[in-house]
């Protein structure tokens, strides 16, 4: 539930914010889909132009120390980051939100045991969990690692919410009139999806993007030539104090993706844990 309480005007405002966010994410998806056309050269192509050229007409985002076109590199890196983040988000929602809801319908002890296990995973920051997963399984595993690492906190929120719903008075009355558990589960999932899917998906996309970009920056993400935005920024770190453009444009792309994801969630700040 958003802290901006729902009234008519505020609901319309939230819908407008969400629409802007969705449009932004959609635009990024289009850029990603046509990335090979928008980027003039393939990923990692060196000596495309003179090295360390600042932004200008020919090279809108400039070139880096190896003569790579920063705009093309940014588009390719955005593609890697965005597609990884989408995969990670799907995993986080399936393993987190849906499993959290379904676990409440499991036998009580099993549900509570699962909640306890997820609580333990939730006591470690998402970033560190993702680092462990990548360290064990390899860099190619980064999107799955980010998704799995983000899922415990989503699982715990979903489980707690589903437990509150299952113990609510209206659920008790429904059971007293013979409404089966499957109908109640379907009721919860339908209304949670209808009411909250964009919020959950938007927040999950934002947090997995941050996790993936940070993994890339720390060297646990995608490897060249398929660099992601985090790795691009890390590579530009040595020279960015003088040549800001190889770091700034990927950072802006990253911030925009995260921002649009949060706007798509209508700036929902989530229920308190």
């Amino acid at each position, binding site marked *: 539930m*958003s*802290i*901006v*309480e729902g009234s008519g005007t*505020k609901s319309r*405002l939230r819908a407008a914010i969400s629409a802007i966010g969705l449009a932004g994410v959609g635009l990024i998806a289009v850029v990603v889909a046509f990335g090979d056309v928008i980027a003039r050269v393939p990923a990692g192509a060196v000596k495309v132009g003179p090295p360390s050229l600042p932004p200008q007409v020919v090279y809108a985002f400039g070139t880096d120390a190896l003569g790579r076109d920063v705009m093309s590199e940014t588009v390719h890196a955005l593609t890697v980051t965005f597609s990884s983040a989408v995969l990670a988000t799907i995993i986080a929602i399936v393993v987190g939100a849906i499993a959290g809801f379904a676990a409440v319908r499991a036998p009580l002890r099993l549900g509570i045991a699962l909640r*306890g*296990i997820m*609580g*333990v*995973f939730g*006591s*470690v*920051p*998402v*970033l*560190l969990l993702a*680092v*462990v997963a*990548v*360290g*064990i399984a390899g860099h190619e595993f980064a999107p799955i690692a980010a998704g799995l690492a983000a899922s415990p906190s989503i699982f715990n929120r979903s489980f707690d919410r589903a437990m509150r719903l299952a113990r609510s008075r209206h659920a008790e009355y429904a059971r007293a009139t013979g409404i089966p558990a499957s109908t109640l589960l379907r009721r919860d999932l339908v209304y949670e999806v209808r009411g909250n899917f964009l919020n959950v998906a938007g927040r999950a996309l*934002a947090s997995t993007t*941050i996790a993936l*970009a*940070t993994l890339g*920056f*720390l*060297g*646990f993400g995608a490897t060249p030539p398929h660099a992601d935005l*985090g790795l691009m*920024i890390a590579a530009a*770190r040595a020279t*960015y*104090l003088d040549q*800001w453009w190889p*770091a700034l444009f990927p*950072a802006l792309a*990253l*911030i925009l993706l*995260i*921002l649009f994801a*949060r706007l798509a969630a209508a*700036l929902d*700040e989530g229920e*308190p*844990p």
Partner: protein
Amino acid sequence: MWRDWLLRAAQVIGSLLGALVLASLLATLSQPTHGFWPLLSVFCAKFMAALEGDFGRSAVTGARSMAAAVAAFPATLQLLTVGAVIALVIGIPLGIVLSASRALRAAAPLIEIIAAMPVFVAALALIWIAVRVLHWSDASQTSALSWTALVRSGGWNAAWQTFALPALTVGAAGAASVQLSLRRAAVRAWSAPYRNGLRMMGLGTLDIDLRYAVPEVIAALLRDAGEIALALISATAVAEWVFHRDGAAVLFLKSAAFGDWNVAAAVLFLFAIIKLVAEFLGLAASWLVAPDEGAA
């Protein structure tokens, strides 16, 4: 009531044991085996040793893993503590201001726009501002020395220039979490029906806020101590890496990169302890502040 607290203590102990299991599972990776039963046997041995604080030896240096982790922790704790203080100093007033009126409450989620910046991007931006705008020394941003060593070697100014930015990075990340928690609680408290009811019955607004609303808000903030601790730990890990500080988080990252799972397990366990202890202490403190409300 005592039963509730015993239950919570049992939950914390259960969570600590769970964290120990997790760390032991990780440490099991340092001893490659084939087959389920050999793996289970190694895990059990690791777990039993971990119960006594023994996480084995580092595959890289040969030193005892827990000793290496504990040796690296003071620098991390230093950064974490200062970051937490900054988080509270910035986050609490920000949270109060942004929940003060309807207009500000409606505008508050726009803070999310600023929070869209990942920690490492914010850290690099701070460095750029410090070097290019404030003309601080570039070299000072990559010193691994502790605060006291910096003061001894370079004086207060050098120490300040070196330590300020990592602390500010961690503090800013923590402040976002603090103000969010505070605003959620403040909005709930300010819009509660009892405020109007008690006013009609004759209590003044200040009375109502000081006796009921403010303790509720503070208690809610304390209950979120675990989440805030997670945000701070995560930010500390990134800040240590960006600013080249030799703390436990960098040790963890290097261990994970080199597959030195004993050391990684020891550090992970220590971080889990910080989070769980912060959570429990936060719950206890929230009960002291607002005993009527009870912990979540």
